[in-house]
């Protein structure tokens, strides 16, 4: 029975290793720069990772099913322009643009999911196509020009505060709590893990796997639309070229957080830590006056390093 006790220890190490790494990182930066641990800086970091965090929560669902969503950056842009086009002063109540962005994202996500689950096309290809199409749609919708002159209530979403905490952070926290709840406590969440572990076995077990997969892409798309609202509200304009490359940051957060690209394992809390590590690292390197070019290299190295550690920890399980 000793064999089993050892397996449990390994599982714990693998699960909490990422938190340990995060603490080490924070400690290292705090030593290097005393202004890191100031409350204003911490709030800054949280605000900076909010958009990526929202995207990453949706991406977690998709990656756990062994899929990938490259279109979130473009859907974010489409959500941003659709929302801001309805957010001029005196037009609609602010809930309308927000819901529209969510709806647009949801629909595009469902389209992604349909081609992946029903037509059995590779997620990489489908979402790559959607990435280009959604970007095109945003450009067509705005004729290439950013949308400005937004109402104060819309700008509040990105610039306002609640009890001293920036609203984007509040939105992020609500999204992540919902995500954790759905993934860990509901039937759907359990199915997401199962489909990622072995889709065929789940299908043979009598469960409609297409529905599960489509829902994960729908979630990813909707959250991308929401992220578009948050981002466009913060910069007070809806630009069709916004969000480029954000899908990679989202994927990085998910992967660093311990979710395997081959599916079946992972967690939202891990993703949050991944997003935090990226955010802390960006912020820390800024405080240490490291050029943004070097920051890019460091970020890439951390991603590779994190995945290597993850792979090594997982190998010791079986």
């Amino acid at each position, binding site marked *: *029975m*000793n*064999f*089993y*006790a*050892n*397996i*449990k220890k*390994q599982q714990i190490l693998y699960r909490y290793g990422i938190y340990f790494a995060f603490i080490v990182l924070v400690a290292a930066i705090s030593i290097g720069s005393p202004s890191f641990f100031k409350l204003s800086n911490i709030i800054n970091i949280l605000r900076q990772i909010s958009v990526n965090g929202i995207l990453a929560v949706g991406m977690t669902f998709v990656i756990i099913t062994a899929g990938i969503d490259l279109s979130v950056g473009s859907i974010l842009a489409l959500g941003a322009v659709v929302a801001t086009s309805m957010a001029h002063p005196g037009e609609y109540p602010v809930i309308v643009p927000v819901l529209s962005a969510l709806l647009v994202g949801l629909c595009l996500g469902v389209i992604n999911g349909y081609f992946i689950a029903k037509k059995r096309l590779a997620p990489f290809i489908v979402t790559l196509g959607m990435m280009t199409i959604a970007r095109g749609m945003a450009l067509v919708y705005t004729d290439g020009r950013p949308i400005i002159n937004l109402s104060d209530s819309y700008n509040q979403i990105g610039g306002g505060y609640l009890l001293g905490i920036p609203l984007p952070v509040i939105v992020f926290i609500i999204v992540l709590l919902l995500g954790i709840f759905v993934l860990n*406590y*509901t*039937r*759907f969440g*359990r*199915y997401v*893990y*199962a489909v*990622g*572990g*072995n889709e*065929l*076995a*789940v*299908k*043979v*077990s*009598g*469960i*409609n796997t297409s529905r599960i997969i489509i829902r994960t892409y729908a979630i990813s798309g909707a959250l991308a639309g929401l992220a578009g609202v948050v981002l466009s509200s913060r910069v007070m304009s809806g630009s069709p070229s916004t969000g480029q490359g954000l899908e990679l940051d989202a994927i990085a957060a998910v992967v660093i957080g311990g979710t395997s690209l081959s*599916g*079946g*394992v992972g967690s939202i809390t891990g993703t949050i830590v991944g997003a935090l590590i990226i955010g802390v690292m960006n912020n820390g390197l800024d405080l240490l006056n490291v050029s943004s070019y070097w920051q890019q290299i460091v970020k890439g190295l951390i991603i590779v390093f994190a995945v290597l550690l993850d792979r090594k920890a997982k190998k*010791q*399980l*079986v």
Partner: protein
Amino acid sequence: MSLTQQDYILGIEKVSKSFSGVKALDEVSLYIKPGEVHALMGENGAGKSTLMKIVTGIYQKDEGEIFIDGERAIIKDPKAALDLGISMIHQELNQIVDMTVAENIFLGKEPCHGRSHVINRRKQKELVRSLLHHTGISINPNARIGDLSIAERQMVEIVKAVSYNSRIIIMDEPTSAITDKEVAKLFGIIRNLTSKGVAIIYISHKMDEIFEIADTVTVLRDGCYVDSKPANELNNNSLIRLMVGRNINDLFLKEAVNVGKPALEVNSLTKKGFFQNISFKVCQGEVVGFAGLMGAGRTEVMETLFGIMRHDNGMVKINNKEVVINSPTDAVKHGMALISEDRKLKGLNLKGSVKANITLSNLADCCNIWEVIDRKKENQIVDEQIKLLNIKASGRNQLVSTLSGGNQQKVVLSKWFLTNPEILILDEPTRGIDIGAKQEVYKIIARLAQQGKAIILISSEMPELLGLCDRIIVLHKGNITGNFSRANFNSEVIMSAAMGQHQD
């Protein structure tokens, strides 16, 4: 041992191996003579696979020595093992699914033009053809491995092992997916090899095969060496006693069951290219077995019945009402369950825990209106199942990938039980699991029959079919060639039906 190391082609002396502080092998010794078929037996977890992985360079031993032809050998990786003349047929097929049969056989030793690294395809084709001819196996060398059945893929593994011209070939469950005709071919190949001085280490749970082919039997138990005896000095009981440490009475005793109304009725089920005009009936409490050779179409019939594949023609009635089954979801709704032939491919989520796998098919039962899982209820249900089926695991959160084959199979069975099926289809349910676990599965099947479930059992082990079934239906190349009631069971007649001779 009065013989010296020189007399053995392979000498394993007091080898130990631990994983994370747990001893998998404890000073195990094994001596193999050239030209002998040496069976290595023991329950799952006894250490056979670990020992063989050390011999083939996949693992490194912690203690002990290995001698080849009397000389101390260091086997630091699989290539070193191959260079020393040791090759292995693995139980888990390590084949490149998208490559052809020929490419897989010559993987790593492709014949090239002269000294260049350009593959000499013509020579490869010739070599493959002569290998297949030599071993008497008829498989298209240009077929894609992924398109072959598990049985055919296993035959390819056998050919591959032979192609290494090794002096020691380890065969780990080489017959788990093939039927008696192919087994006879394999034994012919083995006898051919041993006549040339090649030593075969044969790992299998099939007792009758061991007694037919092996010269010597070594038994391991819980990582320790128990005993080595010439095969002719042992019988079923004494061998089981060595393996398990206790007597197991009679392989299986079938109790009489009251057979009820027809639960499942299949009429003229047809799928072009796979099977035609399959008609049969299964009543409540009845166990109907399906016998046949590899490629006969049994799995295809059941997968079509279950909605995994589309049928072209035919009608299915459940409890006398006609039903339409186009997907596994429909099948489950009508009270059917399918325990697939390949549990790792279709039965289990290997990345999941015992708990997640067991409750997968019936998660709705553990949920409240908001689709939230009631964890306490779920844990209760899972613990119940673990106890009921005697699943050996450290707890419900253990990953199923770390369970033995037998316990994995029990997890699959348990998952289906929770859907409360009335009709169960079991496709090779005891493949690759040890005697103790097999007995438990048989008991489970008997219990299910007593509860009035209708059971379909596909099996390639005649003793299993003869022992468990009320009726045996035989398939040959997609057609029913025989339908035998228990009173008329005769393994030779059943076998001839499996080979194509219609029995009426």
